[in-house]
């Protein structure tokens, strides 16, 4: 070792020591925990492993999107829980966006009443813990719904009762052809809009791609009904007498109150944050931008479509995705009202039955981590692609 290298090493030592200490303490902590866990598990006579996933679960789940019963494996139960989590998150995200955008625009309305109403909505629902809102909807509001025999009737096709919301079931024939037609329509729309953009930029020709797109979206699926052999029938729920005093609906799809309460609480709570994001996004566009657009003769719709929205979306989308992630994570509150999501099914029932705390909690947390990391890495990619390219 020559003198120069030694001096560099000496200089690097100041950088090296804290790093070595950090790593050392992390390794020590983890190995301490792992050692204790090993000892504890040995004492209880359980071995670490994921073999239990293939064992028979032998518990029932009240609400499932896929075939499931007690004879299926724990892995299947996990899948049921995961799908239920994704279902309620998707419903929640849809309605949260709908309410959030409406309220966010409402807060900027020139109409005093609408602006105030939206503000009150945001301030009320943002400042009450989500769990309390969930309890309120589930234990108070939805419990006040009528019994099946006095169900709220929507045109004789759908019934709202204390036991759930009964809606017609779709019975498809040749469903896959319908899906293919929708996919074909979407691909066609992409081509049309690309073509329209090219025409506009190169020749200045205007092609009404929006209307063509809407036409395609309806025409292709309609064609699949006419010539593709696709057929759709509805199974309408019917009130049946179970015994002298007990009535219930048979047929159709039952949306259980747990799902309704959870979707309502999640969407109404998250909507307040989305509303604030939308408001901040629109307010973030400088007045100069709108005036400049107006001065080159754009109409009001054009200003909104071409100038305000593209810039506002760049501000709105990143925090809103964050809210979508929060909503997905908050859907784990399902455990509080016994909606069979991944936490209740897996970290609740399955854990009680197997006693495998470390494996099950790690799988549950790992699943959420995977969802979060994949969405956030997608968002990072998206943000980079829409970022203003400065010269």
């Amino acid at each position, binding site marked *: 070792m020559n003198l120069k290298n030694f001096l560099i090493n000496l200089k690097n030592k100041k950088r090296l020591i804290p*790093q070595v200490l950090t790593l050392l303490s992390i390794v020590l902590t983890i190995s301490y925990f792992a050692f204790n866990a090993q000892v504890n598990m040995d004492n209880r006579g359980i071995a670490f492993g994921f073999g239990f996933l293939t064992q028979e679960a032998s518990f029932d789940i009240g609400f499932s999107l896929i075939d499931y019963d007690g004879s299926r494996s724990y892995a299947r139960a996990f899948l049921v829980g995961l799908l239920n989590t994704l279902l309620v998150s998707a419903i929640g995200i849809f309605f949260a966006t709908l309410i959030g955008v409406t309220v966010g625009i409402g807060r900027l309305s020139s109409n005093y009443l609408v602006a105030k109403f939206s503000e009150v909505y945001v301030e009320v629902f943002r400042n009450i813990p989500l769990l309390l809102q969930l309890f309120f909807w589930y234990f108070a509001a939805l419990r006040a719904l009528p019994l099946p025999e006095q169900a709220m009737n929507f045109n004789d096709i759908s019934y709202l009762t204390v036991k759930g919301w009964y809606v017609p079931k779709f019975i498809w024939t040749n469903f896959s052809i319908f899906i293919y037609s929708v996919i074909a329509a979407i691909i066609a729309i992409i081509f049309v809009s690309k073509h329209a953009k090219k025409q506009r930029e190169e020749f200045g020709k205007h092609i009404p791609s929006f209307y063509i797109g809407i036409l395609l979206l309806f025409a292709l699926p309609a064609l699949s009904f006419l010539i593709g052999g696709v057929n759709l029938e509805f199974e309408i729920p019917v009130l049946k007498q179970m015994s002298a005093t007990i009535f219930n609906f048979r047929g159709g799809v039952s949306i259980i109150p747990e799902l309704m309460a959870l979707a309502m609480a999640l969407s109404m709570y998250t909507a307040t944050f989305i509303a604030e994001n939308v408001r901040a996004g629109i307010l973030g566009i400088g007045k100069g931008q709108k005036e400049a657009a107006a001065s080159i003769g754009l109409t009001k719709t054009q200003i909104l479509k071409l100038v305000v929205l593209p810039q506002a979306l760049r501000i709105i989308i990143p925090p809103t995705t964050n809210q979508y992630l929060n909503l997905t994570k*908050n859907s784990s509150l399902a455990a509080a009202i016994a909606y069979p999501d991944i936490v209740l099914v897996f970290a609740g029932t399955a854990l009680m039955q197997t006693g495998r705390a470390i494996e099950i909690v790690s799988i549950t947390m790992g699943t959420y981590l995977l969802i979060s990391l994949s969405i956030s890495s997608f968002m990072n990619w998206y943000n980079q692609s829409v970022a203003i390219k400065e010269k």
Partner: protein
Amino acid sequence: MKLNTLKPNKENLYTYLVLGVSLLAVGFIDIVTNTFLNLNITGFLPVIISFLSPLILGVFGLHFIRIEYSGNKTLDRINKNFNSNNINAILSLIVIFILIKYIPPLLNWLFFEANFLGSTKKDCTGDGACWVFVRVWFNRFMYGMYPDAEQWRINISFIALLVSIGSIFVLPSKFKKYIILFLLFIFPIIALNLISGGIFGLEWIETGAWGGLSLTFIVSAFALIFCFPIGVFLALGRRSDLPAIKYSSIGFIELWRGVPLITVLFMSAVMFPMFLPDGTYMDKLMRVIIAITLFEAAYMAEVVRGGLQALPRGQYDAAKSLGMGYWRMHLLIIMPQALKLVIPGIANTFLALVKDTPLIFVVGLLELAGMIGLAKTNPKWLGMATEGYVFAAFVFWIICFSMSRYSQNLEKKLSTDR
């Protein structure tokens, strides 16, 4: 004289006003009689038109009084704020009608038909809310299962907390530092010992008996005190140029931010005891506070990092050129500015923390929401869920709303924009 009904103008101002106002009035009378007297004065019309009649009448009425530059200040103001075009007119009417329809029943339920006095469910005779339930259980909602005779200990702790926070604003700023140090380091120890007891002849009260709103405060206060410094260190770690420290901070932050709090609490309840040496036992409340602290610290770290990134490079360079080292630079130059920038973010994290505390029900600790869940299943008080949750929502709303308003004021006060 010709009336242009499509575009009302100033010339026939009063004709239009009388026409518009009377149409509006008929619309309002329709909805009011419908709501309060159960009388449908437009019942002779088809159902759908009868249902929409107040709206239709109102829109026409508002259309007639929409007169630009009428010269009447009140009218101009109404037109500008509620009636600038037909869509705004419809929206205004819908909002007003919703208020007329739903506010009186709500007020009736909350106050006029509610029962406040009494001691059992039988005292609730009205159609409205049964606030007797909240009255009877109030002590439990506030203190959980904490013995009645010892509740003065919790009260004294909170009064001391409020007094010392209040004195920050009253006393001259030179004492401020000491009070904050006292609050951060000495007060938690005193309060913890006072509430749990076991020393100085105070009766020992196990944490399982703690509960209600006071537990909400205890959990959030301790998590708040600890999560802030951890968050600051994690943020510095994430921006460090030492790879090992940087990547372990990133890993730590992303791990906690990627999972829901409820699974973290599950972990603290069922998984963490497996990691401790056999035979050792860590208090449930302590485990919960550690879990919440680590969880919120990750969020705090991201907020602080936002502030650090927003500072211009010149601040770092200037501090270094004065010969300051890493810690001196961050303590004296960087942190004061960075933290000021992220006050709203910090406040939001604290708010989120307070709103997250009800989740501790998963490990069996009952704060306010949990106590209501317990009370509503009491056989003597079945069917009181609505009252309980409305009360809890109100309490939490007051706390969170005042916190958010305070942070907005603080932000304004501390802003040093020139």
